[in-house]
């Protein structure tokens, strides 16, 4: 990008930080949802939404982005105005709930980094040391969803700052919480009911069954020579099979029966309690001594 041009005098040299920064970011799904929701609700004349990212920084340089809020702003061709009071108020409010979350950067929707962004980035670098700039491409340019995180390093020519260089940093999008909730809840536009425990159990077992089937078919294919066997996969399968604990049939039966009996006694206990409850209620409200 920028060429390291040295001027005639020895003092002013164009500083170009070439080394990749050692920062990486991890984002929680709440943030993504918040940004998309804010984008959908933006006022009609705004082209994009801008907001603050909250989170924490761990000791090894990984920044964890846990929360976010939108900040109203005005953008014209050459000017950017950000509502600083609002930003501050929201930050104070969020601090009341969770004092451990601090400002770690800011986000904007839209593809790529624009000129106005550098001004906003400057503002945020006054709040926190090395702010992260997150772009969420809601327009799906290039036909794909791109979420990128940048840190900025400034290009200085002696004392004068020329430009800000936004370098992309690795972004970890492991949506573990979303996985926990269940992707089908979050992917579809509408889900009619949240699965209760037995239904969830059923779907998990079905998935397990399909997995086992796939592995079985794969092994069959390799044995019959239809598919070239991959040693790594073979090793994984062997490991998985070996991790089944080796119990003698009698020992296993004993453990199994014990567990079954425990469970049965619990079910019996809970049914007993419920019967007791209905009896107690009848006694309480039916008796009337007058």
């Amino acid at each position, binding site marked *: 990008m920028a060429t390291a041009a040295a001027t005639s005098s020895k003092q002013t040299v164009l500083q170009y930080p070439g080394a990749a920064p050692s920062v990486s970011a991890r984002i929680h*799904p*709440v943030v*993504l*949802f*918040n940004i*998309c*929701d804010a984008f*959908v*609700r*933006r006022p009609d004349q705004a082209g994009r939404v801008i907001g603050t990212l909250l989170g924490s920084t761990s000791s090894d340089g990984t920044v964890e982005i*846990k929360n976010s809020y*939108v900040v*109203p702003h005005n953008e014209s061709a050459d000017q950017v105005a950000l509502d600083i009071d*609002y930003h501050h*108020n929201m930050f104070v409010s969020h601090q009341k*709930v*969770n004092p451990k979350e601090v400002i770690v950067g800011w986000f904007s929707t839209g593809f790529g980094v624009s000129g106005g962004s550098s001004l906003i980035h400057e503002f945020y670098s006054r709040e926190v040391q090395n702010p992260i700039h997150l772009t969420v491409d809601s327009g799906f340019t290039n036909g*794909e*969803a791109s979420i990128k995180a940048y840190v900025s390093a400034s290009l200085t020519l002696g004392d004068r700052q020329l430009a800000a260089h936004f370098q992309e940093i690795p972004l970890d*999008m492991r*949506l573990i*919480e*979303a*996985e*926990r*909730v269940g*992707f089908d809840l*979050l*992917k*579809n*536009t509408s*889900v*009619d009911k*949240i699965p*209760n*425990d*037995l239904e*969830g*159990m059923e779907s*998990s*077992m079905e*998935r*397990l069954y399909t*997995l086992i089937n*796939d592995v079985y078919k794969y092994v069959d294919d390799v044995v019959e020579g239809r598919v070239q066997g991959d040693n790594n996969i073979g090793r994984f399968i062997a490991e998985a099979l070996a991790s089944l604990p080796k119990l003698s049939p009698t020992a*296993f039966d004993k453990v*199994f029966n014990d567990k*079954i009996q425990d469970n049965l006694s*619990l*079910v019996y*206990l*809970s049914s007993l*309690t419920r019967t007791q*409850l209905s009896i*107690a*209620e009848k006694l309480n*409200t039916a*008796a*009337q*001594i007058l």
Partner: protein
Amino acid sequence: MPLQKDQVTHRNGGTAVQPQKNRLITALMRRHVARTMLLPLLTKLTYQHTFPQQKYKYSFSPIVVPSETLFAVLSRARARKKNPRQHRLVPPPSPSAMANPATGRSFLQAMTSVEEVAPPLRVVQMEGLAVLKIIKHCKEFSPALVTGQLLGLDVGSVLEVTNCFPFPTREEDEELEADGANYQLEMMRCLREVNVDNNTVGWYQSTLLGSFQTAELIETFMNYQENIRRCVCIIYDPSRSNQGVVALKALRLSDSFMDLYRSNNFNGEKLREKKLSWVNVFEEIPIKVSNSALISAFMTELEPDSPVTQCDFDRLKLSSAPFMERNLEFLIECMDDLTAEQNKFQYYYRNLSRQQAQQQVWLQKRRQENMQRKAAGEEPLPEEDPSNPIFKPIVEPSRLDSYLITNQISNYCNQVNGAAGQGFSKLYLMKALHEN
């Protein structure tokens, strides 16, 4: 009593839960109740300032059911399957009353008239964003219990929850009033500026293994109900998410219970009159989850359908013992409470019968006296004597507590049943695997 952070004791430095869970809950709810006293002020603010905006929200905003005209709302309400357990207080709007677009009524008039004839609440529709926020907040602070506010819209028979914000946990009660109020007002104001619906439609709270039915919950409900026509309480249980279950529940007080509560009368006869048993205190409303198209596009793109997720790992875990143990612990405590309540009733009945026996004896004596007086020609004395202490009516103890406890117990039983059912399937699976 004020809740100190170190009141949460952990036995064995591990995962055991504090024995004073009830006090924890009541302290938390007391704070929440005090906070919600600000609700009148809050809703006045929001309705005053946002109701005109709301009118536009319905027509122009891209998120809220924008293009849904009055007909669509009403036809949806009518077309939905009838749920026999709902208590219908208001008949559904008759077709002739509302289906008049050409009468030239203004939008505002039409909106207000809909509010009077409201179809009963059938489903709570939550946005994925609200669900994730609730989960995040509750999980971060578990095992402490937290609450937060739900924001959204009330449309026909669907209560939409589109956003939420958490309440800060306070340690001392003195700063509660001013600070809590300020925080709430500030958040609502800020959210309004970015076009988030800031109608309060209820609140959410986290719970520990389902022990949320307390008198404070009912109090909070009554407070909310005075100001907001339809509100709901969402309960999330972060401890059950270790089992792979999204333990989200939407609760409402049933209407008959609310009437009874207002009259503050929980005698046996009243309850039998209204046929109100402990099952009818709380109503659970099914939750639907919806997402905007943008976010579902993002999610589909970012996370391809993987064959197995963390959720499955959690569900297929074989050790359910800690969960069952805790459940049983709570169950035992609750049974103790229930027996205490029942003892109260027995005591009351015993006293009542004793008092009646005394009354009879006294009446006999009076009658004898009267006969003697009549024989002597004097005026008979009255047969009642309100100043006599044996005629003082004994107050019947309220059954509210026993109802709540019964609800809790049934909740625990349900959970135990569910977990045991899961345990059975897992065990048989293990057996099948082992045999192969």
